[in-house]
């Protein structure tokens, strides 16, 4: 199973299906693909089944044995969920929050990484560690005092409270710092000889070179922010600022049995934007990361 496919070295025997060669070049790859396809299907199945439920009526999904075919009510279910929890507004709020945090993190970590790589200044290691520390302090660890701070700033139920505390990014600073260290020093030398200042150099040379990493960071942070739950629940659970993750809870909270067709319809809709971002920017993530790991 662990055999690596290699070019056939010895001349093949007259019979076309030498057992060893067949095992190596036909059976092993087929087997590998079979395993991968099973894994893909197992991982995908719950999502497909969620879609099937989202198209059915209770009468259809309370049937036994369960039907694996899409029902007739997808549009109605989506429309109901949409109106019941104001999905349009939720999606708008969440998009705004995820977009501004992703962009804010890109800007702040590009400038910070640029400062770390292209300047000599006092306290550099201190500031570097300070920014890395954010990795050790996820939301739950500091939630109580941060809530009090946001409260005293008057930022409860505001977009400021939802976004600004997230603008710093250790991931981003590490990512761009690593990239900037690999930029040939001759570029900066040439810029200095031409009389370009550091900001001009940043804007016209460094930023264009950062594009792939920016896309990678955008992908990571957009999804991260789209999926935030605890922070928006505590800081901004009002009609004007509620995000879609928290809003979905209202579809589940019923006194009677859960209306799974509406819940699954809402769930699918809430998943589409981050999925699109992932599919579109996937390549940049792989390129950006492999560049990073090369060192």
């Amino acid at each position, binding site marked *: *199973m*662990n055999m*690596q496919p290699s070019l056939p070295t010895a001349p093949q025997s007259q019979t076309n299906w030498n057992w060893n060669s067949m095992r190596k070049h036909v059976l092993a790859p087929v087997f*590998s693909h079979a395993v*991968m396809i099973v*894994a*893909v299907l197992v*991982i995908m199945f*719950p999502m497909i*089944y*969620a879609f099937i439920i989202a198209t059915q009526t209770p009468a259809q*999904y*309370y049937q036994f044995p*369960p039907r694996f075919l899409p029902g007739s009510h997808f549009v109605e279910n989506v429309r109901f969920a949409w109106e019941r929890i104001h999905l349009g507004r939720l999606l708008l709020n969440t998009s705004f929050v995820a977009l501004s945090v992703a962009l804010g993190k890109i800007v702040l*970590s590009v400038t*910070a990484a*640029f*400062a770390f790589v*292209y*300047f000599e*200044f006092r306290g550099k290691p201190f500031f570097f560690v*300070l920014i890395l*520390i954010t*990795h*050790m*302090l*996820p939301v*739950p*660890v*500091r*939630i*109580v*005092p*941060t*809530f009090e*701070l946001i409260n005293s700033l008057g930022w409860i139920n505001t977009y400021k409270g939802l976004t600004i505390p997230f603008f*710093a*990014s250790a991931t981003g600073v*590490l990512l761009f710092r690593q990239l900037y260290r690999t930029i040939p*020093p001759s570029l*900066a030398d040439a810029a*200095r000889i031409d009389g370009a200042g*550091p900001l001009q150099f940043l804007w016209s040379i460094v930023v264009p070179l950062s594009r792939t990493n920016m896309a990678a960071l955008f992908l*990571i942070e957009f*999804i*991260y922010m*789209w*999926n935030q739950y*605890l922070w928006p629940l505590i800081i901004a659970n009002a009609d004007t600022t509620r995000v879609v*993750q928290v809003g*979905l*809870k209202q579809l*589940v909270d019923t006194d009677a049995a859960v209306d*799974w067709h509406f*819940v*699954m319809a809402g*769930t699918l809709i809430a*998943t589409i934007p981050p*999925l699109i971002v992932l599919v579109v920017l*996937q390549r940049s993530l792989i390129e950006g990361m492999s560049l990073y790991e090369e060192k």
Partner: protein
Amino acid sequence: MQTRFPNKALPYLLLSPSVIIVILFFVLPSLNSFYLSFFRVSSLGNKRIFIGLQNFTRLIADPTYRNAIIVSVKFAIFVVLSGLSVSLAVAVVANQRFRGFSLYRTLLIWPYALSPAIAGLIWAQMMDPNIGLVSHLLKIFLHFRFNYYTSSRDALGFIAVAASWKMLGYNIIFFLAGLQSLPAELLEAASIDGAGAWRRFWRISFPLLSPTTFFLFIMNTLYAFFQVFGLIHITTEGGPGRATDLLVYKLYRDGFIGLNTGYASAQSIVLLVMVSVLTIMQFRYAGSRVFYR
């Protein structure tokens, strides 16, 4: 060594937005957590009484906190062990220089875009005792009545399955990438020397794979302890009873429902120590590699 620009003030200016945010929203609140953990705060927040270490001694004595620890550890063990072993098994069995790796990568990575809350809703439906496909199958084939609304064990099993499902594709991709970067000559040589597949795996692949395994171990542990709040809040709300009352969920209940600020701060200090240990291990052993979050 990169060329340096001579400016003195500019680097501080460039750093200042990040630094201000880190100090204001990360460092000060964390220090404040320490401070608050020595006080009893009235529920209106207007009175603070210094009580020394009482919040911490209370944590040790509190049976509901002990419950939260036990539940969290059980949950994390399940999520990490099942997540890593299943994905390693898939990656090893499938390990071939096959065509279409990038296609499989896309087909496996997409649950990364889902939130734990969404994963929770999808599995809550799959495992619903009345209409869920999984509970139907368990009833038919094992005569087992699965009900996460009433059974503590079933509830914990349900959230653990939902949480590990979301990480499965991510883990498989990292293991596959790790396996494909192993030196093929070494495995071939062992194969020629007569080592079987099983032996080759445990003696060569598995030890060489340990950086990947360690990285995934840390990522999955952090995930299991700190990123599943939404999954609990949107489905079981810690129930039935306190069966799924994970540490983060208990902190939320004590701090924001019970308005017991000092006690919740003491709990967040415990969490802080846990994350610090895990992150330091991460940086020490896995280097400063950037990771998907």
